[in-house]
């Protein structure tokens, strides 16, 4: 059913359609609207049977989900930013035990400095936790990916993070087609766990494993991710056949087939990029976009095939590895090993800075002129940075960096709070 709804509401309604049996909630901006809405549906009785549990921390949110999943219930939670880091130990644990929990990450920056706005530092920080990671470019995709996520998680017995840009998507009212219950039921059967804590057949889960078998157990986790790589396109095709939308493929190409310059990106910036690409195409430039929907497992072969004929690749990232550079770019580089095309990293949209068409267009044009350095920070206020560095050069006690930069910017920064 077509609706004009907030992204969080759309996700909450979709979660309900997926019939989760245990939902754990701990408030953190910007995912809060999702669990609030799910909680309301449980209280009203429209989502039943379902246990909605208000826990005392994100660590417990995921731990409760771990217990619920081990007990055979379909479990769901949502988090963001500091919350994801606070539960980090349980994030690895859920994956290590192979519990098919689905979790929404409403992507948000990580402090310090504390910042409630969007970037993807949170989910990127846990990219190697063993979870499958899917990134939505729109609210419609967020809706569709959640349905696929439950199916995928339970098929391979691994947890799945569905990542959607905080605020930009979660708080945006957009037209979304929310499927019918019967259709979702037909696509997503009830949860049949691979492993279950059951007095009728006692098993030991989470046993200690020493050097004699640890490698094998970890290798099998890798195998399962590779299975997901094979399975996801199949599930996406099945989804498309039933719901009429292509939402679950590993990658999504846009005007990239004959493009010299291809911008690789994840998440909501893809839509803005498509607008820019259309403008540049109208001006006669051979440019395109490659959206990566599945970051874990990383679709090396698909990315290779999509980029192999390009002359240059620009990887636009909403997070970066401090002291190293691009995170996604590294994987792209691996996919293009041995090929001559230069791969540029452009870090953009950190901590909620808007990524505008104008900035993107300027950046892509620089790329087309081969003027982009290896790593660029889009719209970086170099004067502010220079002054901060100057303060550090001239004074031993230069003070907290964040405070210094805010003082320098003066009233301008206050517009946001």
């Amino acid at each position, binding site marked *: 059913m077509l609706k004009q709804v907030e992204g969080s509401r759309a996700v909450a309604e979709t979660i309900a359609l997926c019939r989760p049996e245990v939902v754990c909630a701990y408030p953190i901006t910007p995912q809060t609207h999702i669990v609030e809405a799910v909680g309301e549906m449980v209280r009203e009785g429209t989502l039943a*049977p379902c246990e909605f549990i208000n826990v005392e921390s994100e660590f*417990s949110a995921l731990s409760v989900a771990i*217990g619920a999943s*081990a007990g055979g219930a379909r479990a769901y939670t949502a988090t963001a930013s500091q919350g994801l880091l606070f539960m980090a130990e349980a994030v690895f644990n859920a994956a290590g035990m192979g519990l098919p929990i689905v979790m929404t990450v409403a992507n948000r920056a990580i402090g310090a400095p504390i910042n409630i706005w969007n970037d993807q530092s949170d989910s990127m920080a846990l990219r190697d936790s063993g979870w499958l990671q899917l990134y939505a470019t729109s609210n419609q995709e967020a809706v569709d990916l959640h349905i696929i996520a439950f199916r995928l998680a339970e098929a391979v017995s691994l947890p799945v993070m569905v990542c959607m840009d905080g605020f930009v998507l979660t708080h945006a009212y957009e037209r979304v087609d929310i499927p019918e219950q019967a259709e979702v039921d037909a696509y997503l059967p009830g949860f049949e766990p691979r492993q279950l804590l059951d007095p009728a057949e*006692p098993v030991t*889960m989470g046993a200690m494993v020493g050097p004699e078998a640890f490698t094998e157990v970890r290798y099998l986790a890798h195998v399962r991710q590779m299975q997901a790589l094979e399975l996801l396109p199949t599930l996406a095709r099945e989804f498309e056949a039933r719901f009429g939308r292509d939402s679950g493929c590993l990658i999504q190409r846009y005007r990239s087939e004959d493009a010299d310059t291809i911008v690789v990106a994840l998440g909501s910036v893809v839509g803005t990029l498509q607008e820019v690409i259309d403008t540049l195409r109208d001006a006669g430039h051979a440019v395109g976009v490659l959206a990566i929907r599945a970051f874990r497992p990383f679709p090396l072969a698909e990315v290779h095939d999509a980029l192999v004929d390009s002359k240059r690749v620009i990887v636009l990232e909403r997070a970066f590895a401090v002291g190293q550079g691009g995170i996604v770019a590294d994987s792209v580089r691996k996919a293009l090993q041995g090929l001559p095309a230069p791969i540029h990293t452009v870090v953009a949209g950190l901590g909620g800075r808007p990524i505008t068409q104008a900035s993107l267009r300027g950046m892509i044009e620089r790329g087309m002129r081969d003027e982009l350095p290896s790593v660029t920070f889009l719209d970086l206020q170099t004067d502010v940075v220079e002054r901060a560095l100057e303060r550090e050069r001239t004074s031993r006690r230069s003070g907290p960096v964040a405070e210094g930069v805010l003082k320098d910017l003066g009233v301008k920064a206050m517009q946001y709070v």
Partner: protein
Amino acid sequence: MSHQDIKFYQTGTFTVGNRLLDPEQRSVQSTLERTNALNSGHRACPGCGEALGARYAMDAAMAATDGQIVVANATGCLEVFSTPYPETAWQVPWVHSLFGNAAAVGAGLAAAMRVKGKSDVRVIAQGGDGSTADIGFGPLSGMFERNDDVLFICYDNQGYMNTGVQRSSATPPAARTATTPAVGPHPGHQRGMGKFVPEIAMAHHIPYVATATVADLRDIEAKVTAAMSLRGARYIHILVPCPLGWGSASHDTVRLARMARESGLFPVFEARDGEVTDSLKIRHQVPVEAFLKPQKRFAHLFGKQRDEEAIAYLQARADRNIRKYHLLEA
């Protein structure tokens, strides 16, 4: 409380021959039907109080629920010695997730059982004092506060023994551990620190809180049975001497547990809905020295120069417990 009212002194050890009891009061361990929930062959040290306590607690829970339990176990000695892959000593469905989250995993299991219509399957979460009083304290308090249908059992050996005997917030004053060495003007663990989780559990006004020691195994069984007859969040705190960490002889585990109780250092009581309802009376009071002296972790108190002040301090703690919990019969 369902322990004996009759004082049996004839055996000289305060123990009661099982055959002297009514059949329904006999120990779960004495029956052929006992489940061996924690089976023999595990890797615990000789004289491990935790293994003893856990077996009695689990078997009692199995007996009370007709075998319908699932268990969430925190990281720690109990987890490590019972499940070196690919072996497991557990005859119950059992999951180990993390050090700090056993209470939350238990809450999730309870939710799963409810939603799956399997409310007859009961949930036990358990761990040592580190996972209870320290790293898992937040999730434990959350589970209590939500009154989740979980029995949490803490096996308190008063320190981080699995990692090589470090201090926890359940380590008693003056005790020597690797992080509270017996050096300086006040050797061993500092005074004025630490917490007693049963009292904090009571502050949550949960239906049932009890303490026990492995000196009174029948008491453990009775308390687990009582806990399993209730719904909601329940807490049992069992003192389990650790020969490795305490520096005591393997054969002294039960005796030390008894001395802890009979000195008043470890009060054994029961509380319902936040109020103490019963306590196990001291039958033959001993000075704290009787508990302290056989343990190497307190050896510095009894060197060339006895540390009278520290001993008096610990005795005062015991006396306070005796007053507070009415441990001596009037």
